[in-house]
């Protein structure tokens, strides 16, 4: 079982779209896949047409007993969802009361080992105790990044934080989203940044209307526009993530946090 977190300190960068679309592709290939919508806004749950409601709430989930019972099947074979709940806004408080506050998420996911091949965590923005839990539970931290100054700043903050805290048990794979190739700044950043951060994925998600359509269609882009630019970009990105996972497994390659310093 591999845990892949779609995370960024900054909001509105395409974390949910990435989690939903990559999980859809994983399931389509036959991998048993779970998306855990950790964001109280419940956007991933909305995309999958599942109510953002967990009967036991965040507190019940934290006890672990109701986690399995809260999982819902989606419209797609092999793809399940652990929906969001508004009570997730209190997750930081609940985690703070736990005995090992930074390892709760890891412990909760452990029983699902063997049931799923991939678990995608759709994370809320910010850098909180929940974020630290995510860092400790995940194998890969996917960081969707818009090629703009503020987004790069957020990525820089994340890399520095991980380095400072000695969080090196997972790989950080940033990738560009919402790339508008008509903009000179976007083009320049997409070209230059991977030279400084070799871990950066080479594929990127273009700015396209069909990703916005996901909200209307309430489905992954591959399910309603499989031949579109965005669907293909997600396919390429998913392929690259799997390749990176293979390399990581074979060679133990990890992203180096020194890259963050170079950026600064």
């Amino acid at each position, binding site marked *: 079982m591999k845990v892949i977190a779609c995370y960024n300190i900054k909001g509105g960068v395409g974390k949910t779209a990435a989690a939903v679309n990559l999980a859809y592709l994983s399931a389509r*290939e*036959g*991998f048993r896949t779970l998306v855990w919508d950790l964001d109280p806004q419940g956007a991933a749950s909305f995309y*999958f*047409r*599942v*109510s953002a409601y967990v009967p036991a709430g965040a507190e019940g989930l934290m006890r672990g007993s109701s986690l399995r019972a*809260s*999982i*819902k*099947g*989606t*419209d797609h*074979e*092999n793809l*399940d969802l652990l929906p969001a709940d508004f009570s997730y806004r209190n997750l930081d408080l609940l985690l703070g009361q736990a005995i090992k506050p930074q390892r709760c998420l890891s412990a909760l996911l452990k029983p699902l080992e063997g049931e799923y*091949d991939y678990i995608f965590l759709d994370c809320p923005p910010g850098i909180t105790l929940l974020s630290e839990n995510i860092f400790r539970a995940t194998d890969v931290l996917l960081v969707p990044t818009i090629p703009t100054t503020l987004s790069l700043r957020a990525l820089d903050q994340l890399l520095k934080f991980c380095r400072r805290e000695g969080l090196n048990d997972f790989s950080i794979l940033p990738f560009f989203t919402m790339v508008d190739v008509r903009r000179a700044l976007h083009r320049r950043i997409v070209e230059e940044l991977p030279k400084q951060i070799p871990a950066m994925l080479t594929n990127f998600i273009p700015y396209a209307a069909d990703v916005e359509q996901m909200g209307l269609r*309430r489905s992954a882009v591959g399910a309603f526009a499989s031949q579109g630019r965005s669907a293909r970009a997600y396919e390429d990105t998913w392929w690259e993530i799997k390749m990176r996972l293979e390399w990581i497994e074979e060679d133990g390659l990890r992203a180096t946090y020194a890259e963050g310093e170079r950026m600064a």
Partner: protein
Amino acid sequence: MLKTYHYALPRQAGSEALSNILRAAGLPFLCTPVPTLERCYYDSFDWRLYAANLLLFSEKSRDGRVRLRLRELDSGFDLVAIDVTDIPCFAAEMPRGVMRDRLLPVLKGRRLLPLAHLTGRRDEFRVFDAERKTVMRACVERHRVDTGDRQVRLRERVEVTPVRGFTEPLHAVLPLLERYPESQVLEGDLFDEALQILDRHPLDYHARPTLKVERGDTVGAAARAIFLHLLGVIEANEDGVRQELDADFLHDLRVALRRTRTLLREMHHILSAPHFAHYRDEFTWLASITGPVRDLDVQLEASARYADLLEPAQASQHQDIEALRGLLRSQRTAQRRFLLEGLASSRYRSLKKGWRALLEAQERWTGAECDEPAVEAALAMMRHRHARVMERGEKLDAQSADKNFHAMRKQVKRLRYLIELFDGALAAHRAHGVLTNLKALQKVLGEHQDFAVHIAVLEQIQESCATQDRPSPAVRVIAPLLDQLRERRRAVAEDFASVFSRFAKDEKARKKLFRVPSDADHQESAQ
């Protein structure tokens, strides 16, 4: 656990009945007819998928799209589905992904064989909630199975599959389906029904005799039953060998042959001397025509890793290794010709015919020698063979000749076959300790033999190349390969002593095995 529910409904009633039931339950739904389908189920010759609780089938739709589905047999849940252009013959030929990952460890090198061909159609139902989210799936299947000379209609069936976390629609629909006039709950998949019509029985092939030799059985009856089973295995694998479906057909045929020869040798006293001498010679002949191809199969498989044996600089000699593999392949082609000629010969036919006639003539398996209790006879044979294993093993050391290691290996195999053939009579659990050490011994001797055969074949090629004006480029790589293989053979020969010592010292397991089993042993074994 989530599972698929199967119901048979009256003929032609399926889709309309299901629609009415869903309406009565107040469930919104969408029905999509899937045009004419051709469905084919696959498994290996020895039912590996079925034994692993898996069901593999292809569905070809009218538009030509072929989808391969892997289903969990007991729950009826689809595990993986992929689109393919051709049905792969082997798991290794499948595109990389979950399907391949799931099938490869189960099937290994066994070929996928078609089991049942179905044609028909399906109406797919998607039940959804107010958010238009799928909360239950159902379908109506109408199929015919091809029996070869005619198409037999299967029962029209409704399959209902819940979606995780949405149980309410299921609870609403199942009682209505059960109450529907003439409906019937079905156990098992469409596959089970098709197999029944085709008179195929899952897991009906066992390379190893599965019959239980009971304590009251005579040695004649037990031997006859085991010989008949082994003859059946030989015959069952013939076609696969002829058509070269996969390498395991020849392997299973040869194992059955070796088991037959072992038992024949051990039980020669229960056959008349002329019968024994005749069949001993004939089965030896059969072994001689089947052996070289099998050896070359093993060698060709190993030769794919020859580059790993060489130093990095020599490993670049891929072309030379490929030339060598080419020579091995041409040797195999020649040997296979002999094998096919042998299998097509009247000698082979009369061997089988005569042997079967002898086995089926029950009166020949009675009499003073045959009427001894099977258990005591089996134990006596094992004690004798065990003594031979000990005797040969004690004489072997790292410097012993290949032929002595080979002779030892044959003794070990004979002992193992005897234990396995009679484990029912011995109360199986008792053989466990000896078998564990025996397998370890067999492994080390098998490795030694493999290296010895590789070396002999390569030396032979090297010798024949030496007399040619323009020898094959393969000759360049043979010398370094031989060095490596000899070194490995030496290392294995050195390992033998410790493995043999473990086997020899295990008095407890040996005593347990050789004691005449009591009722308590049999009760324990049955539990």
